[in-house]
Structures are given as C-alpha cells and as structure tokens.
C-alpha cells in the first residue's frame, strides 16, 4: 500500500515534470538537428545525427555575440542602478525624517499602479525626439529606478534595529558611511534577491526593446531571437539553437538561485 502510493506519487511527478520541461527538451533536441528534420512532416523529435551546426548558423543570421553583450550590459546596468537608487530612497524612507515624507512615499507607491504600456507611447516619443532610438540610453533610462525596489528594500530596512542606526549616527558616522559599511552588508540577502529578480526581468524584456532598437547590432537577445524566426532563410533548428543560447543565463539562475528568486518574486512582484 505504502509502496503503491509512492509509485503513484513518482508517476504523477514524472508525468508533470515531463510536460513542463518538454519545450526545453525539444528546443535542445531540435537545435542539434539538421534543417530538414524539422521541415519534414511529421517533424522529428530527436536528431538522427546530432551536430552543433545550428549554433554556428545563428551567428550568420544575427550578430549573436553582440546581442548577448547588449543583453548582459543592459540587464547589468539596470540592475545596478535599481539597487543603487532603491537603496538610497529606501534608506531615506526607513530611517530619515523629512518634510512631505509620506506624500513622497505615496508617489513612489503610485508608480506601482501605472502599467508600463500606459506610458510607452510618450516614452517612445521622448526617445525619438531626443534622437536616442537605437542607443543603450533608450534601452536603460526608463528602468533605472523602480518603486518595487524601494518598497522591497524599505521593508527590509524597517526590520533593522533602530538603536543600531541611532548609535551609529550619534557616533558621528555619516549616513553614506553607515549605509555602505553597515546596512548594505547586512542587507545582502535582500539585495541579492532584488538584483536577481531585476536582472531576469530586464533580460526578458520584449516590448520596449522592440520599439527603441532597429539595427541588429543594438538589439537585445530577445529581439534577435524573434527576428531569427522571421529571417528570410528560416530554419527552425537555427531558431531553436538561438533559444537555447538565450536560455543559458536564466536557466542557471533558475536552477542555482531558486531560493533567492522566490524571495525576490514574492516581494518584488507587487507589480507585474
């Protein structure tokens, strides 16, 4: 009886896991196929003679290494900036007393209620009018600060013993010094969660980079992958090889830093 239950459990788990990882398995398998194996009907599920030709072919269609670099750079810039602006404003809201504090905090919260698509046209026009289409500036500027980051870090800072803060300030430690040498090191888990969350969110962006980039050299990987699909000589093994390459960083983060991600998600995803 016990054994039967366990078998059922494993059976269900295996079935569900297979369904959930099928797209990944298929992408990997197809990326090792020859072009004709996917353009026949019914398409093959496993490569007859696995080879890495499709991976080399990706670079022929899109400037993959450049787009990889773009994606890493943009995600890193945004993540760093979000952490810096977030830490600074969260510090102000958690520790400092100043006029209009709740009003300003209200403004920060208000940003959580504005769906990005509601402001995407004016932001596009701003970039177009300033001649910033197709620049890293356009890709990063609107995302350098976020209400979520501030909100998340403020919550964390609020749990910090206030005595410690007051003692430090009475001692004559400057705010920046306290922030840098005491608060930030102690908040490392929260900052790590935020950073991972932000990195993945930026890495995965689609709508905005689609609008503000045009040349392949300035596009991010996500856009490049979808362009692969539209390329003249569309070969699906090449498209899926591109997908597999684009998945590597997020797969590593998903598998290696799951605990951080969950914390970042639950705290961070107050907005979409």
């Amino acid at each position: 009886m016990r054994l039967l239950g366990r078998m059922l459990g494993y059976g269900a788990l295996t079935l569900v896991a297979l369904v959930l990882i099928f797209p990944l398995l298929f992408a990997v398998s197809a990326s090792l196929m020859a072009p004709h194996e996917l353009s026949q009907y019914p398409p093959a599920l496993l490569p007859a003679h696995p080879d890495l030709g499709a991976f080399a072919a990706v670079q022929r269609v899109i400037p993959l290494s450049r787009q990889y670099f773009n994606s890493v750079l943009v995600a890193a810039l945004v993540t760093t900036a979000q952490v810096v602006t977030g830490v600074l404003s969260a510090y102000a809201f958690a520790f400092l007393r100043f006029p209009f504090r709740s009003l300003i905090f209200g403004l920060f919260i208000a940003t959580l209620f504005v769906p990005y698509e509601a402001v995407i046209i004016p932001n596009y026009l701003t970039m177009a009018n300033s001649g910033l289409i197709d620049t890293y500036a356009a890709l990063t500027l609107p995302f350098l600060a976020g209400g979520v980051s501030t909100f998340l870090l403020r919550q964390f800072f609020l749990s910090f013993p206030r005595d410690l803060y007051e003692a430090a300030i009475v001692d004559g430690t400057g705010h920046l010094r306290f922030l840098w040498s005491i608060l930030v090191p102690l908040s490392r888990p929260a900052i790590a969660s935020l950073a991972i969350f932000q990195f993945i969110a930026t890495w995965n962006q689609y709508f905005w980079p689609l609008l503000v980039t045009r040349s392949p050299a300035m596009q991010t990987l996500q856009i490049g992958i979808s362009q692969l699909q539209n390329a003249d000589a569309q070969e699906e093994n090449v498209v899926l090889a591109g997908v597999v390459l684009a998945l590597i960083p997020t797969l590593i983060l998903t598998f290696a830093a799951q605990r951080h991600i969950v914390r970042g998600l639950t705290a961070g995803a107050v907005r979409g």
Partner: protein
Amino acid sequence: MKRYSRAESYTAALFVAPSLILFGLFIFYPLLRSVSLSFYGNDIIGRPGLFVGLGQYRTLFASPALRETLVNTLLFTLYTVLPGLVVGVLLALLLQLRLRGIGIFRTLMATPFAFSVATAAVVFAVFFNPGVGVFNGLLGLVHIRPQPWLTDPGRALPSVAAATVWLQLGYNVLVLSAGLGAIPEEIYEAAKLDGARAWSTLRHVTLPLLTPTLFFLLVVSTIISLQSFGQIHILTRGGPAGATTTLVYSIYLNAFAFGSSNFGLASAQALVLFVIVLAITTFQFGVLERKVFYR
C-alpha cells in the same frame, strides 16, 4: 508641528532625488503626456497636429473594435489566470509529497521560469505551426486530426493562453511552494491529532492558510496577463481576423505597426488600459483582500 533636522532633510532629498527624477521623467510626465496626446490628432509623420478635444475618445468608443479587443483581453485574462492558479496549486501540492528526490522535481518544474515571453513564444510557434507543427505531428501519431491551433479564430486565443499558462506555471509553482512551505508543521500535526483526513486538512487548513499567497498571485498574474504583448506579437500578430487583438496589442497596432503613427488614438487606449488596471488593482485590494485569511 514637527521639526526636522535640516541636514537630515538635505540628505533625504539627495537620496530620493535620483528615483524621483526618473519617475518624473519616465512615469509621471509620460502619464500626463498620454492624456494630452489623447486630445490631439497627428500628422502623417506622427507629430502631434490638430487639437481634437474628445475626438479620439469618440472614435474609440464608437468603433466596434474596442468592444472586441476588450472581450479578447478579458477572455485572455480568464484563460491564463484561472488555469495558472489551479494547476499551480495542484503542482505545488504534488511537490509537498515526502519522497526521496523531490528536490529534483521541484527544480525541474521551475523550468518555465527560465523562459522569457519571447523564447517561449518562439518554441510554441514551432509547436503550433499549421503545416509542419510538432503538436499536429504528435496528434497524427495517435490518429487525431491536425488542429488549427493558431489559424482558427475560436482556437487562437486559447492556444496563445495555453502557451502563457505554461510560461507562468514555473513562477506560480515557485511562489506557491514557498507559500506552502511557510505553513508551520505544528498546524498540520494539530489537525492530524484532531483526526482530520487529508481532504479536510486541505480544505480547512492548507487552502485558507494559502490564501495570502493565492491572492498575491491573483493580482500579479492578472496584471501580467493584461499586459501580455510578446506572445501575441510572435505567435499571431493579433489575428486571425483580430481574434487575439487585446487592448495592449491594439495600442501597438495603432501607434507602431503597418506604417501607422496614430499616437492620439493609441494614447486614448493606453489611458483606458490604465483605468482598467487601476480599477482591478483597487478592487482586488479593497474587496478581495478583506476575505483573505491573514495569519
């Protein structure tokens, strides 16, 4: 009358300024500009032209297309949010089984989380392909007729939604597992001592204690769903016959696609979206939250 330290106020101003300036430039100013754009027409190049007052709104509300896009948006949200939550809970419960190697399954089931909207949509485009698709190929093996996954107006929206549910599941399972993991062991043991069976423990203990997590997911996935763009753009471009044109996709079509630069009309639509998101968020926080069981 509160008194503030001048130095502290300056520091605070300096600290909040970077975020505040960025919000001003990229959220608050654009929101106002959306309002102002929606009162103007455009010249053919996309520069704001004539003041048209409420003209864009009249055009918008008079056209049958708005109703159609709103219905599509609503259906898409329903098709993605509810299955995402229900299946998510089932999977998370399955992952609570005390079995050796459950950690491996937990990791594997998070796989969809590693996919972006674009990578997921590109893979599903291969699955759904009308002529040489993987899904139809698999169905053929068991002698089921090929399905018009994306080429039939009644089928396209559920198909895109199914791909979205798969994509969301990784996230939902991660969050729900964390929620389940946070329920203290003692509560279960107390229930066991009371002689509660598995089903009634689930109904009367686990699910109520999971409501904050469920509520959180409901809000988040509703908003994410309302904002869906990439999967529609890659899989269907809003077709066939407009069957997958949601509000966000319609904004894109009017403002950026097919040589169209109708920023005025698209801004009016963007404000409709803003109001809808605001209403849902307020409703969810105001009404639903009261029914949520908080520990």
